[in-house]
């Protein structure tokens, strides 16, 4: 099957070439980081997690979102999602690999990473996160492989795969819940120590992931022979609408609790994000940008007249994705560290090497998804 990825037109190879180029450039920056240490990032004694871990967190959400097409199709027999499930699962596979990449580049001693398995520590949420994320990768590899092979041969998938598919549904929820617990279990960080962090992670996941899937499906309909179907794409739009509404509601709940109770330890982190704290206000336009995108996207999505238009749906999906990425992919992690446990306000912003290395990790994921999609499209073309 994989040989299908080696046959493509000029555009395909240009795209692959561009991704490889970004990976090589980022790879060179990683070599620099490998030799000099994480000092070349914007991280500091007080802000010890930043862009990498934030990307990891965001992409766990994108990975988990496959459940939003798998669940309606397999549990509710919603046939319109039939063609989409494989795309969702492929995104999940690539996202999990991206997550692993971000963890790897964030490690101080990356070659010791297998110590997590050599000295397993069930009392650490990071151990569990490794287990569930890795398990999720395996589930999606097996499920997509088995169901897709069956599709190619024009037969029904074997019966034994059904329970595994059902298992993948709560498993998807678990990967993002455990990732949230990684943060929300820390008494040292009042900003993260909130019960709503897990639900919020899930809401953002189920908005950002399907938004990405909408964009991919729309692009494919226009540029390839693959059409997920108008109904399926717009049903995804409804899922994004609900998930994004819930997310904005959760943010409001969170801000209310902090602001109305007025406990300085809780409120100071929100000040850093939305008003600036002790002269540090670099994140303020960023976070208000995220809020603005969220509001515009919701206005466009909630109104069925605008949502039903492909172009507006695509535009809203971009806004949803960006809004969530800006929050979860930077603000959420940094605000946990600032102010520090001793009340220090420290500035953090990612450096050029940090961004380039991140782009390389993302490119690797996009390359994987490109190859998987190429195979899927070619196989489907040859069937029909």
């Amino acid at each position: 099957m994989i040989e299908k990825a080696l046959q493509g037109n000029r555009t395909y190879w240009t795209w692959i070439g561009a991704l490889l180029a970004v990976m090589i450039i980022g790879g060179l920056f990683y070599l620099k980081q490998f030799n000099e240490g994480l000092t070349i990032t914007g991280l500091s004694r007080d802000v010890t997690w930043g862009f990498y871990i934030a990307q990891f967190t965001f992409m766990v959400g994108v990975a988990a979102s496959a459940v939003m097409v798998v669940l309606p199709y397999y549990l509710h027999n919603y046939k319109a999602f039939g063609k989409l499930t494989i795309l969702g699962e492929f995104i999940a596979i690539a996202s999990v690999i991206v997550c692993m990449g971000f963890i790897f580049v964030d490690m101080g001693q990356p070659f010791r990473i297998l110590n997590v398995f050599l000295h397993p520590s069930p009392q650490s949420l990071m151990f569990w996160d490794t287990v569930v994320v890795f398990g999720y990768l395996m589930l999606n590899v097996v499920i997509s492989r088995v169901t897709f092979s069956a599709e190619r041969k024009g037969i029904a998938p074997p019966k034994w795969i059904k329970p595994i598919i059902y298992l993948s549904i709560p498993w998807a929820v678990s990967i993002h819940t455990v990732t949230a617990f990684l943060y929300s279990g820390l008494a040292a960080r009042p900003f993260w120590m909130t019960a709503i962090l897990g639900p919020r992670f899930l809401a953002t996941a189920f908005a950002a992931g399907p938004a990405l899937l909408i964009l991919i499906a729309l692009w494919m309909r226009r540029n390839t022979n693959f059409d997920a179907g108008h109904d399926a794409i717009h049903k995804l739009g409804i899922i994004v609408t609900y998930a994004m509404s819930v997310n904005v509601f959760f943010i409001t709940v969170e801000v209310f609790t902090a602001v109305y109770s007025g406990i300085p330890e809780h409120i100071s982190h929100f000040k850093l994000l939305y008003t600036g704290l002790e002269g540090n206000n670099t994140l303020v336009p960023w976070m208000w940008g995220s809020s603005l995108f969220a509001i515009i996207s919701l206005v466009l999505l909630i109104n069925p007249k605008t949502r039903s238009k492909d172009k507006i749906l695509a535009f809203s999906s971009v806004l949803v994705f960006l809004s969530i990425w800006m929050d979860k992919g930077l603000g959420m992690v940094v605000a946990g560290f600032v102010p520090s446990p001793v009340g220090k306000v420290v500035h953090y912003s990612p450096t050029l090497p940090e961004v380039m290395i991140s782009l390389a990790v993302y490119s690797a994921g996009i390359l994987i998804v490109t190859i998987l999609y190429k195979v899927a499209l070619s196989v489907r073309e040859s069937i029909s």
Partner: protein
Amino acid sequence: MKISRRQFIATSGLASLGLMLDKPAKALAKADLPQKRPLVGKRWAMVVDLKKCHEQENCTKCIEACHHEHNVPDFDNPKDEIKWVWKEGFEHAFHEQDNPFLNEELKHSPTLLMCNHCDEPPCTHVCPTKATWKREEDGIVMMDWHRCIGCRYCVAACPYGSRSFNYRDPRPFISESEFNQDYPTRMRGVVEKCTFCEERLAKGELPACVEACEAHALVFGDLEDPNSEIRHILEERFTIRRKPALGTQPEVYYIV
């Protein structure tokens, strides 16, 4: 039996996965059974007498002694900084005790901070490789710099900011005159912190900071020993601890 290439790759992949999961599976099986050892009856702790400390204005002897003893590098920039023992304004060290009319002397006097060697250390709970742990026999929160993968989860979990990460190779930043041959240096990419000088205790010596303090502002001792000096001080004087509400049971006590 014929095996296709794809089947072969899939099977060998699964087999190697099985091998990888062996250890975690064993650990899970053991997870619920705490390995109880007989209680040795030792619990190291420290008392910091801020009044005595403040009388020695701008004194940094304890910090210098510690950082020399443990080959702590000096990068001269706060971003990569490593510190085991350091001073912080009282309003930073004790957020919850701050008030607008706080005793002037206290307000502006730096407070000595270090690892609290908590009874319930959040840092050790979160470590995914058991590279940091509480030593059961004497309560010291230990570090294994050869096992640490540098994930910095412990740094995020410490409510006291006591942990430092080696963002760069520390070795070129330890001056030759300061270098202590008897203590290991660290490598880039691992976390470190105060260890209550466990290496000195093993040799029958007090922690370097305690020994260096001429004002006798630092008292180190065993809480389990009712006749120890530290127990007498804790019984007689009013002491406070940092962020007691978090339930970490820090073992560094402050006389204000």
